[in-house]
């Protein structure tokens, strides 16, 4: 069953396609078909956000990611608008490559380094919702692990010690990698991320980034619907 805020039935979510994005169709499908949201597809050469209520930056390999992941995408015309929009309090969610782009653009703290294993990793992992004040995770049970896939070569979240403790004390961590039972430990950390961090938000709590792919866990067809609860957080976010 899909719970909706009736007054938000008109909400519009924009999904950006960069050259090399390859999860754009997946997130559009999940938002449109699994969650029945209105989706506007935005092109990297556009400089108009078309009045959307939130912007999603999808996964993939923008511009091939031959430099650092996300390093070139941040300079595209649409990103100029996204940066302005975010600085004005607009709601933005970056998934995987989208998270990397938001970090490169300075909208989110930290850096995503090569995985500790130096290898690309694609598998199901478990996430524990953390932040009680960031709207995207605030409504999720912070004791129950969600099964969500990862697929990245550079997802090892790094932040200097002082900034890391500030991030934690500001309640900016939205998800941590955990095991099936919700235990956060070294063996449940797939890529070496600091404090098992899988997703964070900015100080204003309007910009969010996460490495795991909730859009890959949104239907019975895929045998996993744990991602629906995360993407539904966009409603809470827009309402907030």
């Amino acid at each position: 069953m899909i719970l909706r805020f009736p007054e938000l039935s008109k909400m519009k979510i924009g999904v950006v396609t960069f050259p090399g994005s390859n999860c754009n169709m997946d997130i559009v499908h999940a938002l449109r078909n699994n969650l029945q949201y209105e989706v506007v597809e935005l092109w990297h050469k556009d400089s108009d956000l078309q009045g959307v209520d939130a912007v999603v930056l999808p996964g993939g390999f923008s511009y091939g990611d031959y430099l650092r992941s996300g390093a070139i995408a941040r300079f595209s015309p649409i990103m100029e608008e996204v940066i302005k929009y975010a600085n004005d309090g607009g709601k933005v969610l970056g998934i995987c490559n989208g998270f990397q782009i938001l970090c490169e653009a300075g909208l989110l703290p930290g850096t995503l380094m090569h995985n500790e294993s130096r290898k690309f990793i694609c598998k199901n992992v478990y996430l524990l919702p953390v932040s009680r004040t960031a709207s995207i995770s605030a409504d999720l049970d912070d004791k129950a692990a969600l099964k969500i896939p990862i697929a990245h070569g550079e997802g090892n979240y790094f932040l200097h010690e002082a900034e890391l403790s500030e991030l934690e004390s500001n309640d900016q961590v939205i998800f941590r990698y955990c095991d099936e039972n919700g235990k956060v430990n070294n063996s449940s950390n797939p890529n070496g991320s600091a404090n098992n961090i899988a997703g964070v938000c900015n100080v204003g709590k309007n910009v969010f980034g996460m490495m795991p792919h909730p859009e890959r866990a949104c239907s019975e067809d895929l045998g996993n619907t744990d991602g629906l609860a995360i993407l539904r957080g966009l409603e809470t976010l827009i309402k907030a």
Partner: protein
Amino acid sequence: MPTMTASTAPSTLIQAQDMGLTPDEFKSIEKILGRVPNFTEMCIYSVMWSEHCSYKNSIKWLKTLPKDGDQMLVKAGEENAGIIDLGDGIGCAFKIESHNHPSAIEPYQGAATGVGGINRDIFTMGARPIAQLNSLRFGDPEHPRTKWLLEGVVKGIGDYGNSFGIPVVGGEVFFDPCYQVNPLVNAMSVGLLDVNEIISATAKGPGNAVYIVGSDTGKDGIQGASFASKDITAESADDLPSVQVGDPFQEKLLMEASLELAKTDAIIGMQDMGAAGITCSTSEMSAAGNVGMDIYLDRVPLRQADMEPFEILLSESQERMLVVVAPGKEKLVEDIFKKWDLHAVPIGEVTEGDTINFFVANEIVAQVPASTLVLGGGAPVYEREYSEPSWFAESQAFNPDSVAVPSLKKALEIATDIICLPNIASKKWVWEQYDSMVGTLNRTTNRPSDAGVVSVRGSKKGLALTVDCNSRYVQADPEVGTAIAVAEAARNISCTGATPSAITNCLNFGNPYNTEVYWQFVGAIKGMTRACEKFKTPVTGGNVSFYNQTANEDGTSTSVFPTPTIGMVGILQDRDKHMSLDFKEKGELIFHLGEMSDCINSSEYLANIVGVKQSPAPKFNLTQEEALHVCIRELIAKNLVTAAHDISDGGLFTTLLEMSMPNLFGFDIVSDDELRIDGFLFGEAQGRIIVTLTEEDQDDFFDICDANKVGAVLLGHVTKGKIVVDEEHVGFCSELRAYYDNGFEEALDL
């Protein structure tokens, strides 16, 4: 321009032989042209008549393969890949190809460009790739070079496919010393299209513009097709420039632009540039449409400034296509490519007649009749002699009684060893490096099954996909072994509930001029024909890779095991019926379907535990096999089984463990007094499936098995986690899973 003289000077027989042509072939070219070919023309013939492009030593036998079927929309040889009709207006294009020789010397780029090439074949037809599979073979796991090759190939496949964004949904990895110098890298791509939007690789309409689109042309991969058509030797590394370099980002843009183009009426024909680049695409498209072309090589966007005409013609730079554009639609085509930041440059036009003229500075540098270059036209066709090797009879003489039967206790110790062998242990080190979920169609991530199953959006259907070939069986007996490869693929498809539709094949063999190798090739074709006819799975295309062998220091050479990899597609009418292989509930009954057997021939156990390398192929009966497949599909359709998994590499014990591990269940089974315990646990007799069911479904289950004349024997039941054979406790599933999960990485020191 001094280089022009060299390009247009008459060629010599010595030059021709250097480029792989025989004296007879050189004479034929002189006869066709009525003169001595110039250097550039000779280069064109050398690549087009190479084994890789012409299939000159295989086509006679390939033509005997079954290629007709009810679902065929595009048959073998007609286009870049075959297409089957899925109904609902949806077609499925699929093909498998090898990239063995490049991978042998530059594993990363070799494997990456293999992935790029096969996907290009699919989207060139207007189909969006939705799934990939691959089949990899390497040498001795303990040899340091094996680790280097494995790491390079897996990273190459991963980096290219992950960025390009098509999930890997299945595959196989196999080790044997015969692949030491010459690994096999076979990649398959599967795409979906609207049946009204199929793009043909045919040039038509004199006056129509011919465009080159995508990447610039550079000096990489020059003569790759010729390189693929000779033995790998110690000097092969000198051929390094023959290996191309891949750019998945360009390919992604090229795909999106091409698929956008497919929705318009601007395209007359389109072909990707793979082997032999501009030469192959212009001649094949012209020959297919009975037209000629004028091509201006100095209009081709180049990566390097100083390229000779023959280099431009033979370059195998990746991520390029040739497009013939409908009159008046040039702007539309250019705008679409511009949107995706790609070149679309007119380099010539279609002409009347059969001649392709290649110009530089308005001077003809080469003039060749298109039809004389291509397979089915003037390219040579050879009949090769073949003879049964002496060792075939030796293998057949193997007597299983010569292998002492271990005690139960000893056999169960062996069971733990077998699940750690790199051919059997978990390959998660490999497949976790591939994005298996992008596209959100892969149903097998959370429902492991014998074949990969993907959803077909816009319908209730699913596609079941698999690649299979146990080359040890083919080495033991080419005809039976190849029939087994087809049967195993069909069994895997059937165990998901799907019905096999068609196959694509990748035929990896040694040197065709070796009569014993050719005997293997002929046997494989015969076995494949027999099995494909039985399962009603026509061959839609694929490729042949000869010259897979290692030149030894003493002047002799060792061929790889004959490896006819089968890529099969099946249709699941209602994907909600998709059957997985994992045990679901403690207490459910475990049944063995098919004839019980203790045949140990050519098993992993016999080859790598006992150490007997020569024995016949495992027991196999095509008629019983088909009955079994019909039976399992009916059982699944009627919801009478809760899990299904075929018995293959490693035998029954491995099969049961694989069913236990996803949910950490176990099994308690009883063996058969009549059968030797090692054969019961580790034998690889074909035509067998393990299923689970609930007690209340037993009667209906037996009715269906009886009606299909398929034997069903109760082995035991699913446990909470304990693994027990004949009341002997082997261990807990979690313990055995730790062995199974780590065996591969430990064996290869990864």
